[in-house]
């Protein structure tokens, strides 16, 4: 099969899943107890807003039901739901008083930034330890690293994040919280927030210095802050590099928590994969050629052992986004997880569904990319 055929086939397979996700979210949002029509009119539901042809009064509540299509059969309601989704009308958030699409659009980059950076920590850590573990199979290092792999998987991520805060973000003296800049007071990390408090001012409900028009990824946006804007900032953030460093420092602890927690399973995958490859014929051939062991492992074995690791990438992104729900809550990042948790407290259902849909979209997209990548690296996959 040609590569483009594979991609097309993969895209076709995506369609039923997308349809399924919309059915699922529709079903869940119809489980909700809260009556959307009653929520919109509040205490004015009883007010008569008009009369039917027969002269019966229509209350505001009934008018809302009519307008929202709640009197229609479920199938028609589903049709309306899908149409609205497609048009970008995801409903209005009652917590943020903004369209849900905007809320999610602002929150998604924050979560993604955290998840990606966490994977940047998890992958090298997991892969390198996995390689060493496999090479030194059944020796002390192997046992220890395998134990830690299981221990990392078993850590409750929210608790681990709090322990990291306790160790790296609070001072030793009883006065407690330390200066949130690395190096200035005993070398500790900022305890929470996405950037320094002096950089924040409320814009549209979100505390952010960065202009709204940017990518939303502050690690990137910090390099595009103009000199004119920089001069308005406090002196310790007077350059792009300092802004970048500030963002990075704030990301360090949450990403470490997420990354270490997800490195455990990666380590095990890598170890298993490499152990399998080390028994292959071509590795024996390479050894027989008289290559040094390090060259055999790194050049011949690892490159092949890494191929299956690529497939987990898609799942890791999903896992990292799921874990980010918890770390965001702890580190006060206004990402999707925190937004979802907040809207759950106020039963703001459109936002929850928006977050669910967008995470599903991100997950499906990343899996698609990973699958195509896999097909490019390993042509055998295309033959199925």
């Amino acid at each position, binding site marked *: 099969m040609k590569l483009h055929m594979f991609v097309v086939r993969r895209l076709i397979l995506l369609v039923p899943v997308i349809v399924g996700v919309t059915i699922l979210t529709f*079903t869940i949002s119809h489980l909700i107890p809260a009556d959307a029509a009653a929520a919109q009119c509040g205490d004015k539901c009883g007010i008569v807003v008009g009369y039917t042809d027969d002269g019966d009064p229509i209350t505001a509540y009934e008018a809302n039901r009519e307008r929202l299509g709640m009197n229609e059969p479920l199938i028609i309601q589903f049709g309306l739901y899908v149409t609205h989704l497609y048009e970008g009308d995801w409903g209005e958030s009652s917590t943020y008083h903004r369209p849900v699409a905007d809320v999610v659009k602002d929150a998604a980059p924050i979560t993604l930034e955290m998840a990606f950076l966490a994977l940047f920590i998890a992958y090298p850590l997991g892969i390198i330890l996995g390689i060493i573990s496999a090479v030194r199979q059944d020796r002390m290092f192997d046992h220890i690293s395998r134990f830690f792999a299981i221990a990392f998987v078993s850590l409750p991520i929210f*608790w681990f994040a709090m*322990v990291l805060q306790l160790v790296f973000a609070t001072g030793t003296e009883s006065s407690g919280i330390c200066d949130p800049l690395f190096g200035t007071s005993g070398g500790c990390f900022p305890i929470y927030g996405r950037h320094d408090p002096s950089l924040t001012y409320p814009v549209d409900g979100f505390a952010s210095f960065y202009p709204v028009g940017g990518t939303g990824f502050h690690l990137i946006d910090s390099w595009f802050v103009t000199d004119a804007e920089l001069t308005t900032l406090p002196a310790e953030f007077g350059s792009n590099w300092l802004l970048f460093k500030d963002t990075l420092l704030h990301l360090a602890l949450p990403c470490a928590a997420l990354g270490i927690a997800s490195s455990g399973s990666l380590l095990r995958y890598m170890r298993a994969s490499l152990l399998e490859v080390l028994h292959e014929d071509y590795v024996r051939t390479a050894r027989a050629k008289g290559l040094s062991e390090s060259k055999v492992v790194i050049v011949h074995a690892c490159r092949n052992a890494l191929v299956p690791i690529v497939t987990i990438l898609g799942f890791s992104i999903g896992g990292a986004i799921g874990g980010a729900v*918890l770390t965001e809550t702890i580190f006060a990042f206004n990402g999707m997880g925190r937004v979802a948790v907040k809207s*759950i407290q106020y039963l703001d259902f459109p936002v*929850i569904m928006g977050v669910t849909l967008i995470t599903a979209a991100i997950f499906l997209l990343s899996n698609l990319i990973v699958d195509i990548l896999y097909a490019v690296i390993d042509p055998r996959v295309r033959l199925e």
Partner: protein
Amino acid sequence: MRGWDEGEEDRKESLKRLTEAISQSGSDIWRSWRIYRRSLLAVVGLMLVLSVVTVSIFASDIAVEHPYRNLQDTQDLWTRDYEPRRAHPFSEECDWHEQSISLTQHRRDEIVTVVAVSDNKVGESIADGYYRDTLSVIELLSLKDNKGYDLNTSLISIDPNNSSILVLSEELYDNMSLTTIWLTYEFDNEAMHLWWMPDGYDVCIFGTNNDGQDMFSKVLYGSRVSLRIGITVALLTVTIGTIVGSVAGYFGGRVDEVIMRICDVFFAIPGLILAMAFVTAMSAITSLTMPLWLGILIPILFLAVVSRTYLTSTIPQENQLSNQVMGSLVRNRNIFLGLLVFFFFVGLIPGVSWSELFGISESREWRLSAAIGIILLLGLIGLADKRFIEKSSFDGAEERVSKSLDWTNPWKYLTLRTVAVFVAAFVLFRWSGSTDDEIVVIENFGRLWKIQAALIFTGWPGYARLIRGQVLYVKEMTFVEAAKSVGAPPGRIMFRHILPNAWAPLLVAFTLDIGGTILSASGLSFIGLGAAPGTAEWGLLVSDSRQFFVFDPHLMLFPGLAIAVTTLGFNLLGDGIRDVLDPKNRR
């Protein structure tokens, strides 16, 4: 008709077989254990799991106080009492108690004594009332007037006959300028003295929380909640996943494709987020009623029946009658599959929407009749068994009943399936009840139930995929072919040939999943979606400690460690079992 005496041979034979099976499995277990104990980590894992289970069983005996005990009750004498809040582990303050005594009230009521106890109030939950303990005073530590100046502690003495009674001296009564006094004393809270600790260590070992409750007791009781959630959820997800997955594996083709796409839908949304949405959506449900329960059950039972039919139809020597009845199920399986998908998504909407959907008025009668009708339907499907249809005439029914129920050899019925049916029946019976207008399967469908439902809802696709792969693999093996060719009944092929060869990864996944479930459940509790506030649940305890954790890390350290250790135990155990089941280690 055979009597009890005639059945003796059969009884002996059955008993012999049972004993053999047990001794065989005994030696199997011994061999497995020898493989298992090779790995130190696995043994450690087993120890951890065993100790957590032990702790959860004996929590009420080991714990120093009931997790809901609270002296800061809002009632009478104890209104302004002070129980050491957030006392650190091993601190003496755990046994201190500060109490305010209103002298004006005492003068008015002419009470000469003040008692350091209140009635013991016993309740199972916070709503029922807090637990209180009888405090016997050991030593008076300080006495202050209402302005905070120290007074001589000799103004108050402990009643020599009853150390729970404090006697106020005449001087205190005479001094009209004193209205309130603050008294701090060390009390001998019998519960605080851990019976298994040496003398001199009678202190709270995990400290106390913001409400003055003993953390050690809370953490101990938390193990009950977590284990319950972990094991229930893992069991139910395994059951659902196995049924769905084996159906997908057997049918193959379009059926497989549809089921796997449904699984993909679930995989597409991160589990925690889906569970969050699901828990929130369920917030109005207070009891799991029959229509709702059936909405969950029907798809599963349908799948089970279809898979059975499919299996039956693959066997060459097939009973014609059952083919006629069940064959239609197989022939119209696309329609049924549509119904399955339909029920799966729509059936989960509470009963109200059911009636909306079918345009039937929403009344108690309708729901009851619908529930009864569906039960009857299910019963019919269940009874549409080969043997039942064969003999579906009422001639000589009595004889047939006595024949089909071989009471001369009761051992014959002692099989895994019988036990499972009885356990399931008992569990359903135990949980079910009824309210005014509904048949209720699970009464008090509280928040803990909701997390469990959400975790089952999000968890089954993983198992479905796993078992599907296994079934696909085992189905093709020669021994299955061989079993089919000698005419083994489908149930036998399923239970004796395919499942024993497919269960190994399932068991491993199951063990690992208990740990995973405990993690997810505590995560949900942490963000405020799990257990009700005040419950002794580990995730909730960590969450409660968040605002104090910088200065009082012990509040968050111990419950978190408990989660980590329990999960680690199950994960290590799962790994150990994997090693045991690995054919490479079988030597």
